[in-house]
């Protein structure tokens, strides 16, 4: 396949993300990377679970957490997962415009989520003096949730870069795999969040 065919395909194939060898490699490689990320987050979850009662005299999880904000953030992130599914749906139908729109919605929801998280951290720090340094619980909480937040931020930058870079030229076999794995990444962030709201917040509230 010549470079010209990749950049300006006459016809989009059924699975544009896997039409080239490079695309297939990216697809498989990224999934493998997510396998590794699973262990990374498991280690962070494990650390949090081991330290969840180590308050060092400071506030504990039951006292700290409120469910309302977490519920709203959860809904935002879950919905963003669906909107990125819509984006991929339009990618497969070779409808670049609609894909960009849905990616835009995804980014907006992700931003709102991040805003919520920052507000929440700020709240804990100022209202409860619960910080990264105040107790082992604090260290592990901010590390786990912060790692996830960092992933969200990176995902947003990544998707926006892709959107801007390709805005003028539309879909081709070179950028389709990039869009596809970005959306895989976004779903993975959502998977991690499902466990965060369950293990950190809900279990923290139960005590």
């Amino acid at each position, binding site marked *: 396949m010549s470079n010209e065919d990749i950049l300006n395909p006459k016809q989009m194939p059924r699975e544009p993300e896997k039409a080239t060898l490079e695309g297939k490699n990216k697809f498989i490689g990224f999934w493998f990377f997510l396998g590794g990320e699973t262990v990374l987050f498991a280690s962070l979850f494990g650390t949090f679970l081991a330290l969840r009662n180590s308050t060092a005299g400071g506030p504990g999880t039951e006292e700290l957490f409120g469910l309302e904000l977490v519920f709203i953030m959860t809904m935002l992130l879950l919905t963003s997962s669906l909107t990125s599914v819509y984006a991929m749906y339009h990618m497969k139908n070779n409808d670049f415009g609609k894909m960009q729109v849905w990616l835009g919605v995804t980014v907006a929801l992700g931003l709102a989520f991040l805003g919520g998280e920052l507000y929440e951290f700020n709240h804990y720090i100022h209202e409860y003096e619960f910080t990264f340094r105040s107790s082992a619980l604090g260290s592990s909480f901010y590390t786990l949730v912060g790692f996830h937040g960092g992933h969200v931020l990176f995902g947003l930058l990544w998707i926006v870069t*892709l959107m801007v870079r390709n805005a003028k030229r539309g879909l081709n076999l070179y950028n389709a795999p990039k869009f596809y794995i970005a959306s895989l990444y976004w779903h993975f962030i959502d998977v991690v969040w499902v466990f965060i709201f369950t293990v950190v917040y809900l279990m923290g509230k139960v005590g």
Partner: protein
Amino acid sequence: MSTAVAQKKGFGAFIWDYLTTVDHKKIAHLYLVSGGLFFLMGGLEAMIIRIQLMKPDNEFISAGLYNEMITMHGTTMIFLAAMPLLFALMNAVVPLQIGARDVAFPFLNSLGFWLFFFGGVILNFSWFMGGAPDAGWTAYAPLSTTSPGHGVDFYVIGLQISGAGTLIGGINFLVTIVNMRAPGMSYMRMPLFTWTIFVTSTLILFAFPALTVGLFLMMFDRMFGSVFFDVAAGGNVIIWEHLFWIFGHPEVYILILPVFGVFSEVFATFSKKRLFGYSAMVFATVLIGFLGFMVWAHHMFTTGMGPVANSIFAVTTMAIAVPTGIKIFNWLFTMWGGSIKMTSAMLWSVAFIPTFTIGGMTGVMLAVAAADYQYHDTYFVVAHFHYVIVGGVVFGIFAALHYWWPKMFGKVLNEKLGKWAFWPFFIGFHLTFFIQHFLGLMGMPRRYWKFLEGQGLATGNLISTIGAFFMALGVIIFLWNVIYTAVKEPKASADPFDGRTLEWSIASPPPFYNFKQTPLVRGLDALWIEKSEGKKGMTPAEPLGDIHMPNGSILPFVMSFGLFIAGFGFIYQVDNPVWLSLVFIGMGILLGAMFVRSVKDDLGYHIHKEDLEKGDGQL
């Protein structure tokens, strides 16, 4: 384009070529040279340790410096010598063995190397910047989190950066093996070396994230005031032990599995026989990889996990002996009935069997959890892991270098010098480490700066030190062999050892595109099948056509350099926040390079059919 650059002969162009290369064969050279240099550094540290322990109550180096030596010896040998040397072999051989023109992610391959390299450089910078890390290569908290100075900071940052490189390399080889095999090469037709690399890469993928997290926690504790390992604020130091060993145990299989692959190739080739029990070997490899994740806590029998956990981990650890035993017997029976030729590569492999059997035996002894209350953290353990890591990994690397040197550099290493290097190393090795089993049982804990008069440990330690000098001599002769071969030996043929696998079907060294036409694989030992049917080489699976090649890039070097700068910022911002500026500069360089990589299309280039027809290697 890299070809254009390569034709300019100047030294600057040569350097530039290696800085920007994405060719797996050149990256193999980079890994080999830098891994080799770090190996010499680690060896020098080992010699200093052995001189310090030459006699009782010795004061050759101070206690603090001694702890730095043992820490750097362990860290260097594992992360900066053994791992990259194995990566050198993977890069040099795996794509050729599966009939691929390159790896799946040439750019990431280069990035992986440069991350490893700069990580190693940061770690070793510590010697000149106020002292090396001194908490042991295991860096148990809180000794490591409270260690004064910046030594352990260098450990954390250096390993974090080189660990990222390793993870990238692991994913790259997984995808390469999954996606890029030549037509006809099913999983059960892959050479065993490729199989072991596949399993090794899987272990890297699942083991390194635990280390990443552990290092982050330690970094946060040391540099940003978190309290994971500060018991006064509710921290728990056992978390580090678990995270380290969840990584650390698979790590030792990451080291040993590739050389199992090497030995499988060498035994088969130099016995002129198909590997005995190929499917059992594959199964054993996978099983070792799988069990490798269930045994880490045997490093922690004396931590106090309780009898239930100790028993479980004792039994799972013993279970690993079964697949390993299967391998030993399969190798023996590969040679059984064969026509054994004792080349240098074969010599190292043959020497491996008794050595590794002893290492495996002491491994089972250590798995006896209760008895480990006596062995743990003594010279018995030191002897055990040197028997498996030197007797296994280092012997394997030497065997592999002798075996694949023509494929990597176009010349066969001198046989006579090869044997001269082997004997002092082999004898020295057993002198150094066999006695250490007894030193441990006689009550000498490991990591002891000095032992005292009247403890009955003097003779054993002296013998051990003498052995170390023999090993050093062996290494020096090997280095001499490398130089001698480069100068004096003639160019090697494509298949100097009557090889069995695909890498021997192409020139030594191969052209940069490896295979002019992708070969068609018709079974295990693809080349052997063709040769036994009287054919000269492989049957092509495709007509001669344009070959797609990746573009070289300086970006991997730039990205890694950015992290290198940021690393110093992280280390020194504890003293003065001004240093944070380095973090921003370094991270800026990294993100900038990533951004460039992301927005600039890089589709590679094509070598045209007509150019290929003009002849091999002249491009």
